[in-house]
């Protein structure tokens, strides 16, 4: 099972209520990397079937123009999640987001249902990926297990609202209350070789606060952020997209290392900075990110 989409670019993952046609008809025009069509919290208890109906038809009929289509299913403690998976897989979704994940078994339960649905609706085995949202102290402590639970799992995401409740605190806007979880999740994800996404920032009137939040998680190593409004997209992409000067430097580093290696030289300087083989992967990553973001025009 080797789905090339596991490593795709996911700077922005935008939540959309699956029941709202006006929202789900063309979110791709804002160019988020992924959309997350929500069947869970955004949908009222007595509207779950209606939401699944509009989700299925949207997935079937709308050309999302390369934007990844993730479906957030209802919790495994609800009566809805299995049917949510059937509808999503039948409609042709790319991934399933599991809410409130607390263990590797949670992921494996979902994985089994996805496999059944893939078979039932004639989709190739392994075509549907999984991401796991961690929303509790237990989930944070089990992060590495969750990250290593399934071949289909491309990443984990922090869900700050429920997590802070569980921690008996609340979202402060400073990020202090999220520090441990953020750190733990990124480390676990990197250890397991999967991606890691940060929680939403809900104050749409404070775009400066949002920018600072994104700068923080970018430096912490997150691959991207869950967002709730298209207005947040440009800020995230701006911070996550390598700047031209970084791209030029990364190009030099890669070329110089390749060249110097052939000449048997291990340590040298580029633009006055000491460079050795340890910089190679980072520079390669910068170029890969620039390529995926559509800003790289070179030939590396």
């Amino acid at each position, binding site marked *: 099972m080797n789905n090339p989409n596991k490593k795709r670019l996911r700077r922005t993952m935008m939540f959309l209520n699956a029941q709202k046609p006006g929202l789900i*008809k*063309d979110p791709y*025009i804002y160019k988020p990397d992924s959309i997350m069509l929500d069947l869970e919290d955004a949908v009222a208890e007595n509207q779950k079937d209606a939401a699944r109906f509009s989700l299925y038809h949207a997935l079937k009929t709308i*050309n999302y123009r390369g934007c990844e289509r993730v479906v957030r299913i209802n919790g495994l403690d609800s009566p809805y999640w299995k049917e949510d998976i059937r509808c999503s897989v039948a409609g042709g979704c790319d991934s399933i987001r599991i809410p409130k994940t607390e263990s590797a078994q949670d992921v494996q339960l979902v994985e089994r249902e996805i496999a059944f649905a893939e078979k039932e609706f004639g989709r190739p085995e392994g075509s549907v990926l999984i991401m796991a949202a961690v929303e509790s102290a237990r989930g944070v402590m089990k992060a590495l297990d969750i990250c290593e639970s399934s071949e289909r799992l491309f990443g984990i995401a922090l869900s700050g609202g429920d997590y802070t409740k569980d921690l008996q605190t609340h979202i402060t806007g400073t990020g202090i209350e999220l520090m441990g979880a953020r750190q733990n999740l990124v480390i676990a994800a990197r250890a397991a070789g999967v991606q890691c996404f940060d929680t939403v920032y809900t104050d749409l009137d404070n775009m400066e606060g949002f920018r600072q939040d994104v700068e923080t998680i970018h430096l912490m190593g997150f691959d991207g952020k869950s967002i709730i409004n298209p207005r947040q997209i440009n800020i995230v992409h701006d911070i996550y997209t390598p700047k031209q000067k970084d791209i030029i430097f990364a190009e030099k580093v890669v070329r110089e290392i390749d060249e110097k290696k052939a000449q048997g030289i291990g340590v040298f300087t580029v633009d006055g900075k000491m460079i050795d083989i340890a910089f190679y992967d980072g520079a390669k990553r910068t170029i890969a990110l620039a390529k995926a973001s559509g800003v790289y025009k070179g030939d590396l």
Partner: protein
Amino acid sequence: MINAVGRDIPEEILKATGKEVFQGNHHFDGHVFQRHGANTRCVINSNGSKVVDSIHDVLVKCGIKDGMTVSFHHHFREGDYVVNMVMREIHEMGIKDITICASSLGKAQDELVEYIEDGTITNIQSSGVRGKIGEAISNGKLQGLAIMRSHGGRVRALVTGETKIDIAFIGTPTCDEYGNCRGIGGKSDCGVLSYAMADADYADHVVAITDCMVPFPNFPAHISMTNVDYVVEVDAIGDPNKIATGAAKPTTDMRKLMMADYCTQFVVNTPYFKDGFSYQTGVGGASIASTISLAKVMKERGIRMRFGVGGLTKPMCQLLIDGQVDALLDTQDFDLAAVESVKDLHHYRISAGEYANPFNKGAVVNKLDFVILAALEVDVHFNCNVVVDSNGMITGAQGGHPDTAAGAKCAIVIAPLLQGRTPAICTDVTTVTTPGESVDVVITDYGIAINPRRKDLIEAMKDVDLPFTTIEHLRDIAYEIAGEPQKVEFGDRVVGIIEGRDGTIMDVVRQIKPFEFTEE
């Protein structure tokens, strides 16, 4: 006969109106004609006041009779009381066959439908009609032909004498006993009286109606006593809450912000964006947002606007406050900030004629670099429709759309690709109101199309990172998403004409045909 935008104008309409078909924007350039003059009743006796007790009495003094043409302005927008007040009296006097010549009509005048149905009103000339009057016209209830003409085209019709106003009723926020009118002050403050100025010049009788009498002289007058026959004081000429509202909160709708950003990026990359440029924009969310983002770029690059024109809103007036524009030329105020701004020394009132009349010796629109407009539909020939909705119902107004688009060096139309579930970019608009030769760029949420006639703009944009495409491609995306719309089915009767700004016929509007479901 087929006109320059490919519309077939029925011979009987050409015969009935004595009009020509539209033959291109510059067909009448250099045309010479004699201006119409109004009948003038001299007031030489110096002990008189022009104040008359009631609307009824003033109608009697003006000799109201069947078949007359009466005129109104729309500066009180949805808060207007004047049109209904006058027409109610005319109706009660049993007068029939009235032609209304208004600068615009809207929902505030819904009660006029009754007078259309009973033959009190048989003809309407207006920039457009929103609300129930539009429905009545589209349903064939008006006996005569509705003429929809732009703000500039209306003044042209008055100047040439094509339309002769018997009595002009001018609602005015303040007035003195001798008829000096000002658009400012009082309780129904609308800032300017631009649309009524031509009425005062060209009507045989001019009646000022106010709810705020002030001592003589109410100077400087926006409409002078030299043109006014009578003054009537009434309790209220409008609902101040609906005349000028608080400034609209800048939109947070990302779709509109995105189109606004495309618009600003386009504007600043044209050769016209340089110190001393001129600019007009509308009142839609995207237009207002683009003014705000343009102001930022102007500040960053140290570029000043020489003048801004139009119906004005807060963001344009803010440019004056911030010293980013030398002058504002004002024909209408849409919010309280604009009404307040008109007191500034560099915020000038202009008449609708100065603004846009193609039949004078040069209008302000001819000096515009940019105009930012909206549209209900744009077709692959860049023709725009701003009057008729997707059901074929008359529902909007031309306003200054055709005037500014024709005059500006760069006319930009912003429209979302889909209006609800209806493609806004289509093969042929339902009704042509602004010809494609006037429209240079169409900006949608899915991409931007430059009119192929504008090779200079295409060249200027060749290295600009914006989502450029063709208008046909935009149409194809719209049809791919929403399906190709079926053509609206109309009845045979022509109920209205869309007049070009030069008085020719751009298109006709036919009676609505009720939709019938057919079994497949």
